[in-house]
């Protein structure tokens, strides 16, 4: 009966009668990025007459966890998933992801070395690659140039002290100097992790099964955030929505922390002049490497192979350069970054250049199954500290105790 129904479903218009139909789930929110992706998928489907890839939008990437868990438990995950690589280990451990090592080894048309090694690391667990890079990014400070000029700041702040001073000077006439991401979600946490690393701290001990963020460096990082709140020069973002640019663009705040995917949005907004500078450093400079990867879910050999074809298509220099130029994301391969077309693009787009240059101080979140729960714990305690419920020290030592329990 089911086979019969499935058979009936294939009787579509000729263009849809393909041997392998696969689904891609993604959570791109910007209209421009969606249009570029749709065009690229069309190109892929034209190039592969036997495959029909269909994209479906799942909404905010931050809120995907429950939906994906339910889909996996109900045995209906997509073939390919576009998501932050930090999340793949949980699913790899559950045995629902397919490693791509044999595809890489057996595919002479694909060169693994062309992709940045740090990005492979992000998608690797126990020596096997489960998530292939789609695009890269990192965090930097976005600021309102006119407000900087009015406050008499002619050089972007480079250290924590300069940053705190700038935030205070920018706070006037109903404008706040800086917007701190608040809420207990990953956005808050991955932003804070940059400051932890800048202070010389680590998330986990080298064995990766014990919390290390409660050390003095972590306390310094959290105290720095608290000091901005205490100065009155930082306001909180909408809960769990620290990635929204609205308050910067409408002139409520002078600085926010955000990423290069905003390029298209900023090019559209000619009414505000927004600049970008690297995250301020403390003991060292650091930013958090993000970006999305494609996870490959187990199905049958034909679909898995079709999905690999798309992963390969995405990592090709052609896709990477087109995608990077249209969206502001950073390319994942050296050959793409070195093309004359991309280099020319960087000369015209200083915003992206800041992010591209920052890649050298980029750090990555650990690829471990416990990361999502660990992030939830950290998020909750960072929020409690910012609301003054706990001292930074107490918040982080409580969080450490909870995180350590995850590894028992």
């Amino acid at each position, binding site marked *: 009966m089911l086979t019969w129904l499935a058979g009936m479903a294939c009787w579509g218009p000729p263009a849809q009668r393909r041997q392998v139909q696969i689904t891609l789930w993604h959570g791109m929110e910007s209209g421009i990025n969606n249009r570029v992706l749709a065009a690229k998928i069309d190109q892929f489907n034209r190039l592969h007459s036997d495959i029909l890839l269909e994209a479906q939008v799942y909404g905010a990437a931050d809120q995907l*966890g*429950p939906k994906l*868990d*339910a889909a*996996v*438990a109900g045995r209906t995950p997509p073939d390919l998933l576009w998501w932050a690589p930090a999340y793949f280990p*949980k*699913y790899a*451990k*559950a045995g*629902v992801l397919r490693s791509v090592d044999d595809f890489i080894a057996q595919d002479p048309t694909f060169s693994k070395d062309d992709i940045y090694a740090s990005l492979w690391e992000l998608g690797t667990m126990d020596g096997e690659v489960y998530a292939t890079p789609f695009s890269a990014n990192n965090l930097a400070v976005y600021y309102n140039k006119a407000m900087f000029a009015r406050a008499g700041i002619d050089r972007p702040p480079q250290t924590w002290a300069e940053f705190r001073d700038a935030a205070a000077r920018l706070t006037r006439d*109903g404008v706040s100097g800086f917007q701190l991401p*608040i*809420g*207990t*979600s990953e956005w808050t946490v991955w932003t804070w992790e940059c400051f932890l690393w800048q202070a010389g701290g680590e998330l986990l001990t080298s064995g990766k099964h014990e919390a290390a963020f409660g050390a003095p460096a972590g306390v310094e990082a959290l105290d720095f955030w608290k000091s901005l709140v205490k100065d009155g020069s930082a306001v*909180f973002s*909408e*809960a*769990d929505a620290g990635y929204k640019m609205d308050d910067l663009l409408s002139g409520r705040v002078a600085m926010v922390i955000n990423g290069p995917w905003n390029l298209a949005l900023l090019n559209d907004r000619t009414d505000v002049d927004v600049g970008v500078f690297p995250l301020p450093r403390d003991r060292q400079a650091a930013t958090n490497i993000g970006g999305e990867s494609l996870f490959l879910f187990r199905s049958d050999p034909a679909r898995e192979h079709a999905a690999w074809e798309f992963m390969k298509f995405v990592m090709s220099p052609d896709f990477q350069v087109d995608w990077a130029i249209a969206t502001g994301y950073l390319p994942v391969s050296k050959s793409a970054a070195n093309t004359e077309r991309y280099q020319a693009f960087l000369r015209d787009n200083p915003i992206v250049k800041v992010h591209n240059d920052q890649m050298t101080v980029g750090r990555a979140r650990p690829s471990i199954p416990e990361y*999502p*729960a660990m992030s*939830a714990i950290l998020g*909750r305690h960072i*929020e*409690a500290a910012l*609301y003054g*419920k706990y001292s930074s020290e107490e918040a982080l030592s409580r969080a450490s105790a909870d995180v350590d329990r995850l590894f028992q």
Partner: protein
Amino acid sequence: MTRGHRDAVAAYLFVLPAGLLLGIFVIYPICELCYVSLHEWNILDDRMTYVATANYSAIFADDGFWQAVVNTVTFTAVTVPVGMAISLALALLLDSRLKAFGILRTALFTPVVTSSVAAGIVFVWLLNDDRGLINGTLRWFGVDGPNWLQSETWAMPAVILMWLWKQAGYNMVLFLAGLQAIPSSTYEAAEIDGARPGWQTFRLITWPQLWPTTFFVLVVSVIFAFRAFDQMYVMTRGGPVGSTTTLVYYVFDKAFKFGDMGQAAAVSTLMLAMVMALTWMQFRFRHREE
């Protein structure tokens, strides 16, 4: 087969469809819930590990759980009586059979059929610190309104406000039906006996006659309030610092943020017990009254 037997078989056959539905969608999930609550399980895993009552002791040791209990009780204790009073007042107002009130009745019922996510988003805008309509209006009167949704003190009142607005129409319709079921001859008789319309007739006729409706509204309101989740999810994400995390939100967090289905099931089981106990108490109370 005797006639009695045949009757019994027929009776069971008649009950079967309802029994099956109840069994599959109510009884079985409840049993499964209790079963999961005794195991350690992340939803992605095929195996469950029996841990006896470890999930329950972990929850009792968690400050977050007790905060959620306090939040849920506070939420219920405020929304139920205040909400019922508002709905009853509206119903009494609309019960005066004026034609123009038909539109008003529809208007008051609209929030009930509005999606709580859409309404929640509108309330987020209304409650915005310096651009929201609510603080804007307060400023007119020289009052500097709080930053509602980002304040540990004011987030709960804000969510309660939204809930009252959303639920008022539902209970109002129930009360209205109850009011219209009271025969007008009772009021006429009271008038002949010299009862003054207004407070006296309300106290002596309306309130006692309306009691079955009031009781029903009470039970339903308590259960609804206990299940509150979507408003918090849309407006505050249970924050700031857990100040609007209700029990259902806590269950959601445990299950999907921390992937701990066992503990989530344990809290759900406790909630089920609490709601059942409350309902049982309410019915006993009513029984005695009658």
